[in-house]
């Protein structure tokens, strides 16, 4: 397997280089997509399927699609020659940084990761058996809450900056409709499954949300879903709902137990599932909106 790993590492480097050195935007984005997939693969190799899934879906897929869409709307890049000296300096500095990092990695004292025993010890009290979910939604739920805020902030940002009009994809042909008829319910199903699975195995709200978003995007490209036609309020409310549920749950827990985000004894799983459910919907809607670039205020002309 070591050979595969080495090849994978080399391939990642090559993909990164091709993304950076591509003369036009499309080529660069293609390089980026490949790069993202390879990285997702490497996550799998590192026994982190959650991360691999998220990377593939969001980091590579959604981002790549966004980039492609943006590239189509932009003027061709100006011929901006970077001076040779600057390039050389950058290379030198990058090598220096890399060298420093390499030294650091070589020198790692092999510190005991304190979390493993802690998580293992407390997993029983967390209400779920998947340690990742336990960390995300119980032990370090505060981080997750704030990450949802990041997502929302990104959405607000896009809303503030977004283009004046939204793209109106052409209605796809009759071949596409049957596909959608299967795809859409399936994505909901898969999302639900992932959500439920998250309690015991890799999976959870982020993955479920990504899948849900995939389904929605399929509808969108098929012309079945036109966010621009939907009044702004509900969509935004959908985006915010999950986060709001999370925050409300945090406060409710505080009211009930006296500690923020400390779920009542024994009911951990219910709480986590409820929160995750909200998050799934929210993430799906948010990712969709991020993609379609809805202006705040929605379809208000």
């Amino acid at each position, binding site marked *: 397997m070591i050979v595969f790993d080495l090849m994978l590492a080399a391939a990642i480097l090559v993909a990164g280089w091709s993304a950076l050195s591509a003369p036009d935007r499309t080529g660069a984005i293609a390089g980026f997509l490949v790069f993202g997939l390879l990285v997702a693969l490497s996550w799998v190799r590192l026994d982190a399927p959650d991360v691999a899934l998220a990377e593939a879906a969001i980091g590579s897929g959604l981002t790549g699609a966004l980039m492609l869409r943006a590239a189509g709307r932009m003027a061709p890049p100006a011929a901006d020659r970077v001076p040779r000296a*600057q390039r050389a300096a950058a290379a030198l500095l*990058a090598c220096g940084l890399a060298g420093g990092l390499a*030294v650091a990695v070589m020198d790692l*004292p092999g510190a005991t990761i304190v979390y493993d025993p802690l998580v293992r010890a407390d997993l029983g009290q967390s209400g779920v058996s998947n340690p990742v979910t336990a960390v995300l939604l119980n032990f370090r739920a505060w981080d997750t809450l704030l990450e949802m805020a990041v997502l929302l902030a990104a959405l607000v940002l896009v809303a503030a900056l977004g283009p004046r009009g939204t793209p109106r994809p052409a209605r796809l042909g009759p071949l596409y409709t049957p596909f959608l008829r299967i795809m859409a319910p399936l994505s909901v199903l898969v999302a639900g499954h992932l959500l439920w699975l998250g309690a015991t195995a890799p999976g959870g709200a982020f993955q479920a949300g990504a899948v849900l978003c995939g389904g929605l995007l399929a509808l969108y490209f098929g012309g079945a879903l036109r966010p621009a036609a939907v009044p702004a309020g509900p969509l935004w409310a959908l985006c915010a709902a999950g986060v709001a549920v999370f925050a409300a749950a945090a406060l409710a827990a505080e009211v009930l137990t006296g500690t923020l985000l400390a779920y009542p004894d024994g009911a951990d799983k219910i709480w986590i599932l409820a929160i995750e459910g909200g998050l799934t919907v929210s993430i799906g809607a948010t990712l969709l909106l991020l993609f379609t670039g809805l202006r705040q205020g929605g379809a208000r002309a």
Partner: protein
Amino acid sequence: MIELPLFLVPGAPLALLILFALPQARATARALVPVAPLPALLAALAPVAPPPLALDWLLLGTRLALTETGATFLAFSALLWALAGWGAERLLVRDPARDRFSVCLLLAMTGNLGLLVAQDLGSFYAFFAMMSLASWGLVLHGGGAAQVFAGRIYIAFAILGEVALFAGLAMGAFATGTYMLADLAQPGVPPLALALVAVGFLIKLGAVPLHLWLPLAHSAAPAPASAVLSGAMLKAGLFGLMTVLPLGAVVAPEAGALLAAMAVAGLLIAPLLGLVQGDPKAVLAYSSIGQMSLMALGLGVGLAAPEAWPAIAVALVLLAAHHAFAKAALFLGVPVVWATGIGWPRALVLGAMALPAAALIGLPGTSGGLAKDAIKTAVAVGPGAWAFWLAPALFAASLGTACLMLRAFALLAAAPIRAEVPRGVALPFAVAVGLGVAGLALIPVPTHAAKAAVPSDLLPLAMAAALAALTLAAVRLARVRLVPPAPGGLLAAFEQVPVPAPVLALPAPERRGRALAPRRRRRPDGLAQSGGLAILGMAAALALAAVMLPEPAGSANPTSGAPAPAAAPAQSPAAGD
């Protein structure tokens, strides 16, 4: 007779001064100027001297008192000031700036009268300065180029004198620990202090070589002002010296010799310079220098021979009083001459002027004769070694005075008539002549029994007449024409007429550009390009530094790398670490 409070001596002219501040009251005030010195005169003439006065709150603690010497000085000064005030009122009747003159006159009067009764340093110095500075206004009054020049020289010397006086008085006060003027004459006062004080007074007295201001000022000032300048104010210097020098108490032959040398120089130089003057007032001024030098001589002898001092003091007072009246009468006569046409009126005036002139020359029977005799007698007691040249010096003085008088009369006789001089000036002059004749009888002077007149007393006058005749003849025969030099002797070389307004301060060159803001560039925010480079550089540098740098000392943490504390998570909310 009612007792007159001493503060009225300087207070009366000051009060009048305040009257001048009211425009409506000016006419009255002008008329009252001649009577302003009246309280001073009354105080001086009172049979019982007014009681001393202590005003602790005033200045540095003011003490006023009238000494015996002071009474004499006060008497003739007051008379002179009254005459000058009267004369000025008549002379300047058409002068638009006469109020200014009156104010200066009153200020100077206050100062002069006040210093004669002041007993403490503060008020004495204040009165002295008041007199000196206000006289500046008297000198400057005419406003011509000569006045401006004379004023400049005058004020320079006056300020110099003030400053020297200030320094000396301050040192003296510090040494004695009191503020009383008379204490300066006590032993223990540093010689430097006395020397400084003496310089201040000698400038005022007009001792050679500190006399340079005197002829200029006297000739530039209006006649009444010259009268008081010469008659009263020079005497203030004498009065000061008599008060502060330890006369009669210590033997100071060096200081005495120095003073005597200055005096003799004055006695000899004054006639020589005076004779070549073309302005009668300048000639009279030089005569004043000679007379004052005579008094300085007396002081010098007094310093060198303390035993002679009592007699000299008497003689000096006599001399001062006599000179005051005589010189005032002569100065007041000058405008009268100008106002009268050539012919018998002028002859009459010149005849009247001859009386004080005769007194000045020291003809027997006149006040001058009395005074000169007194000084001669007193000085004769002086140091034996000095006798050899004292007598010739005194003779030279008399001769010089006589020559100067003749020169003055010659000039006056030929002076053109001046239409702008009012005739009213004759009356004060007449009174002045009267005072000159009767003067010493009116005021409380120490008695001196004059010896009988001898023909040799007339010798100076005779010799002077002969010299004059000779000179006249020589001039006529040789057909030379004397061009009188400007008054002021050496200093005349420095006179600049007219003085253009000097460009003293050139404007600073315009500064271009702003000092603090460097040159501006068009786009100072074009940095984003190299931003990535900066990030990389920073991170790399820090990372490399972190690797390269040795481990900080003392960081050997024994717990490093050790497993984390026991796994059980504390449930208490307060748990931190």
